[in-house]
């Protein structure tokens, strides 16, 4: 029984591995289907191109999925799909914090917040050094873009 299970697992593992490796193609398939569905509701003129492209995307995704099942996943692909590292997650969070901070507080205040967070939590510097760096950063942005180039810098949604 245990031997049979092992043999079955051995036969299914490459298949399962192949299917898992095609996550991206599955997403493309779903996006293609969504655009086809949306395009069909739009009418003949507006919807024709999205439906056509959606069909192309679905066809390509199916080819990739079917092909991927039979092709061994190489090491590069395995490395690319390794779980995100802590530092990578921090960097992603910092990028989105920057976008939100700039959107809410404006470019200068947002830059201040962003640089402090980057220096403190990603580069691991002390809080005083982080603040000093961010003030210098903001000054450079103001000097180059507002004072020298004369641009009107965005002030944020709340101001």
């Amino acid at each position, binding site marked *: 029984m245990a031997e049979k299970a092992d043999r079955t697992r051995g036969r299914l593992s490459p298949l399962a591995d192949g299917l898992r490796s095609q*996550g*991206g*193609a599955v*997403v*493309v398939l779903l*996006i*293609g289907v969504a*655009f086809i569905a*949306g*395009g069909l509701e*739009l*009418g003949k*003129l*507006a*919807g024709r*191109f*999205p439906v056509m*492209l*959606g069909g*192309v*995307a679905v066809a*390509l*995704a199916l*080819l*990739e999925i079917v*092909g991927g099942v039979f092709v061994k996943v*190489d090491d*590069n*692909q395995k490395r*690319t*799909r390794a779980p995100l*590292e802590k*530092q*990578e997650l*921090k*960097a*992603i969070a910092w*990028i*989105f914090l*920057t*976008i939100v901070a*700039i*959107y809410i507080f404006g*470019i200068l205040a*947002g*830059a201040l917040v*962003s*640089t402090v967070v*980057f220096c403190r939590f*990603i*580069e691991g510097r002390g809080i005083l050094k982080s603040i000093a760096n961010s003030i210098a*950063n903001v000054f450079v*942005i103001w000097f180059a*873009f507002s004072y020298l*180039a*004369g*641009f009107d*810098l*965005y002030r944020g*949604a709340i101001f």
Partner: protein
Amino acid sequence: MQALLDTALSLMTFEALVLMAAGCVLAMVMGALPGLSGTEALLILLPFTFTMPLEQSMLILASAYASSYVGGALTSIVFGIPGSSTNLATILDGHPLHKQGRTIFAVNLAAICSGLGALFSLVIVVALIPVMQPVALLFGPAEWFLFVIFGLVVLAFSNESNFLRVLMSGALGLLVATIGQSVVSGTPRFAFGITDLWSGVPIIAAFIGLYPLADAIDLARGGGAQGSSIEADPVVLKGLRQKGQLADAFRATIRHADKVGISAFTGWFVGVLPGVGASLASVLGYLVVRLTSRNQENFGRGDVRGLIGSETANNASVGGALIPALALGIPGSLNTAILLSVLMINGVQPGTNIFSEKVEALWSVLLGVALATLLSCAIVVIGGWRLSALIAKIPPRATAPAIVLIGCLSLLLARGNANDLIIAGALTVVGLLLKRFGFSRIAFVIALVLGPIVESSFFQAVAIGRGSYSVFFASPVSLILWFLIAICIGMHLKRVLFGESGPKAILAAERETSDG
């Protein structure tokens, strides 16, 4: 000719020269920093161009475009780390030359070959201008539509392991381009009531989100400075004091003039192919020179011909990429996609318009590339290895906040709409997912930029054919394009079925051999 002279005179102002020099230096620094490239330089310079006349905008952007490849050669030679993917093949023979104490010779040779490659390709572009407009007229809506498909297939073919994924990326880009008002009927599509999306996904937001913001994550998680003291090696140190290396570099260029020519032509030709870009040009330039050389045993061990092959070709691709961009409006690379976007924002349509009514913009681009190439080569020859040692001391991670903040600033200055930040954030997620799953961002971006014109061309073609799709097979140009598409797909299938290696796989094997 009169337009050329008028443009040249208008650019010979102190302000224009300062702008060009700024573009050059910034792009060289960006090109030299691993993880960054000329694209970031173009995006940083973009907001400054919004208040400039079109000719000056194109001058500064074209300068940055041309100079980044020169900067990347420095870190490839001195540190064995590619400044950008366009200088990958330069490491094979450039870095061994540095280890042999011939750093200044190698750096000067790279600069000379870069200059010659770029100038060669520009001469071809200028020579082809009289035929570009008639060729552009051969391309009706059906031919134009097929040329874009051909471009995406060629891009997929050049990416050996991910052919289908590149095509899927192109399809996704075209799908995202349908967001907004239909170019045919004006009906809002897939905007979900968000008025900022009615005019489609903003291209600048797409560039910023997919590239600098997505790449900043890799920079932010990267390590510290990679520039250890290059003077620690006594062989290198002795070589740095040796005189006459610039003259040696010139002599080597003359002695191997045939290799310079072969590599330049290879790079130019690769640059013409839509979406392929300078990184493949560099690799192919190296391989072509190697394959056409006798006594190949020194390649990968400091053979001068290897350095000539890679550095001439990547810069020669600059001029090549301008041909489909200016004649047909199809970007040959991401950087030309940015140049084209700026042209279109300023009301200049590539194709017949740029050759007739807006010819000053055309000459600004060409002159910008030519002058910037000469200037950046001169900077490298004068500054030499010291420049790369200085640049290498900048830790890549420290550039991440600057890149992100300036990217966001560019975005806000482009349209003055803060909601573009949110769109860029969403596209950052798309960029991260594309990278993670092995899809192609360049195919996505090119398809996104061209999407509206592709759709309108499709409908115009069908209208010309009175509803019949046979219009896509009607003209000789269409048939040639179908034939070329079939060849690319056939060659890919042959590669898949018979397991042949493409250029990058051969290069990877070369690196393993020379490292071992």
